């Protein structure tokens, strides 16, 4: 098959710096060599390719925007976005792993942790020696995390944690969980280490989506957390939401990778699949689909680039991240479904990546803020009326 060479109808290439392009190309090559050849097999057996962790770490994919003193690459946010984009061209589940490790574990430790916590955890998370997860969502509290039931209680030796979290990426394989719980009514962040007594993380089975990624429950039954494992600078739900904002930023970029994979597959297929007397790409109905896909990809690419440039300048509003996450996920899912239509029956086979992307994107559209919640976040921003409590 023809080597993937990107989708760039508006010469957006010229708006990236040399380093940004080089980083993207390196990750693209990594994905081509290490992820694409194995991903269908792991997806089929619902298994996370754990051997990729050390390879991704060696490349520097974990916490890449953090300072070099922790072993990180100190990249800007556009480069970070491009990494997410390329990883998700491979698979949303693999991108999710890197997103969680970087945006939901390393970011909160870096932002809300003590010097000791940062010095201990960040280098180990950067090298992949330790894996992290993020526990905010609960079985009954998804879009409304403020209602969480998980509680921490101050005791003599630290804190006693009780409650349960659900839909936690990396949970079962994590060495450390960043867990959000109410302490005297205020949401705080805690580092819960693997094998702590009373803490279990069973894997959730039976997923039709993100099959090459580990999703778990976290259960806390009188788990004693030492004082030193409280993230000292957390002071409310807003800190957890700051983490989500980081992750959403990565998702807005990531799904463009899935879009590109689906478009590229559909275009190549349409040009070679002959029905009646000519390739299906020669029919107007197919062309309309391909043009729609390419147009939406181009719009999403430009949206992301400006989003990244604003973030690098410190001017980004979280409502802008909501808009990019909301739009790009919706369009990615549409493009994946359209690509499947162009591929006809072949589209349902895992010989092609489109049905896997399509199934993955069902999760991606929902996690890190549903499409509906992002609509209401932007709605409140432009009207001044909150449509939810």
């Amino acid at each position: 098959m023809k080597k993937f060479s990107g989708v760039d109808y508006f010469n957006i290439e010229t708006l990236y710096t040399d380093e940004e392009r080089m980083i993207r190309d390196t990750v693209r090559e990594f994905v081509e060599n290490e992820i694409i050849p194995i991903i269908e097999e792991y997806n089929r057996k619902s298994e996370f390719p754990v051997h990729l962790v050390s390879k991704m770490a060696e490349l520097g994919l974990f916490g890449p925007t953090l300072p070099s003193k922790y072993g990180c690459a100190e990249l800007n946010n556009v480069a970070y976005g491009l990494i997410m984009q390329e990883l998700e061209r491979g698979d949303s589940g693999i991108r999710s792993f890197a997103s969680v490790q970087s945006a939901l574990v390393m970011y909160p430790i870096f932002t809300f942790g003590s010097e000791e916590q940062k010095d201990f955890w960040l280098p180990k998370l950067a090298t992949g020696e330790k894996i992290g997860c993020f526990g905010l969502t609960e079985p009954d509290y998804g879009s409304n995390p403020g209602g969480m039931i998980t509680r921490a209680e101050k005791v003599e030796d630290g804190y006693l944690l009780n409650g349960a979290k659900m839909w936690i990426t990396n949970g079962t394989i994590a060495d450390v969980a960043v867990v959000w719980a109410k302490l005297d009514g205020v949401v705080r962040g805690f580092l819960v280490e693997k094998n702590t007594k009373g803490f279990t993380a069973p894997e959730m089975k039976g997923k039709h989506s993100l099959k090459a990624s580990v999703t778990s429950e976290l259960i806390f039954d009188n788990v004693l957390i030492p004082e030193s494992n409280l993230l000292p600078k957390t002071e409310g739900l807003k800190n957890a939401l700051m983490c989500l904002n980081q992750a959403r930023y990565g998702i807005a970029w990531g799904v463009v990778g899935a879009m590109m994979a689906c478009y590229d597959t559909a275009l190549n297929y349409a040009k070679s699949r002959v029905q009646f007397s000519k390739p299906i790409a020669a029919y107007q109905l197919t062309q309309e689909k391909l043009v729609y896909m390419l147009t939406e990809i181009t719009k999403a690419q430009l949206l992301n680039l400006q989003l990244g440039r604003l973030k690098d300048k410190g001017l980004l509003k979280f409502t802008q991240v909501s808009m990019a996450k909301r739009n790009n996920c919706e369009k990615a899912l549409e493009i994946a479904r359209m690509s499947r239509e162009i591929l006809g029956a072949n589209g349902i086979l895992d010989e092609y990546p489109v049905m896997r992307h399509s199934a993955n994107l069902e999760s991606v559209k929902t996690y890190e803020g549903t499409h509906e919640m992002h609509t209401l976040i932007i709605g409140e921003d432009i009207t001044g009326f909150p449509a939810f409590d």
Partner: protein
Amino acid sequence: MKIAVCISQVPDTATRIKIGSDHKSIDPNGVTYIINPYDEFAIEEALKTKEKIGGDSIVYVISVGDDSVKETLRKALAMGADEAVLLKSSSAKDSIGIAKALAEEIKSLGCELVFCGKQSVDYDSGITGQLIAEMLDYNCVSVVVDFKLEGNKITAEREIEGGREVVETELPAVITAQKGLNEPRYASLKGIMAAKKKIIAEKPAVDSSSFTEILDMHLPPSKQPGRILGTDKSAVPELVRLLREEAKVI
């Protein structure tokens, strides 16, 4: 120790090559360039050698060409090479011209160990490394698939027709790399950021007259479409007749 790696940029192997209007060069429009794949093995072996011997070894990457080669040199720096030298030349050089320019630079840098790819995948001459060795009076082992350096002594395994041979030689030496020598590393993100601060020295390539001249360049004749004689055994007699009378292969 100073180690040199000579690299060349070549059209991406997935590129569809078009011949330029002068019929003596390729049309560079729309061509993306990559590091010659055999040179990646050379870079990796130089980096591994440096890591093994430690101390204050320096790995130089050297290339002959125009400004466009800088991006390729930058990639080698991102993989971990310490310094790069671009020997600028606007006119095309033949293998001897390129070898001469590289040899001069290797001499002035004082590199005792030189790695090259066994050939570049564009012009495929496959002699640059050997020419450099001859010009500098260095030892040379070509088409190497295994390399060991102990002190001054080199033990190298090279591919020969139908097998392999193990040879011993000593520094100074030129080694040309074959696929299988190693698994080239990816440029890490930290490496890419570090490469930004590394120097690419630019010097004019030494002038030398070419020993060869390109008279004409053309694409191979386009493949004739196949012919289907039939889909069952009734087609066999006709197939045999055509193979005998038309293709004259049986």
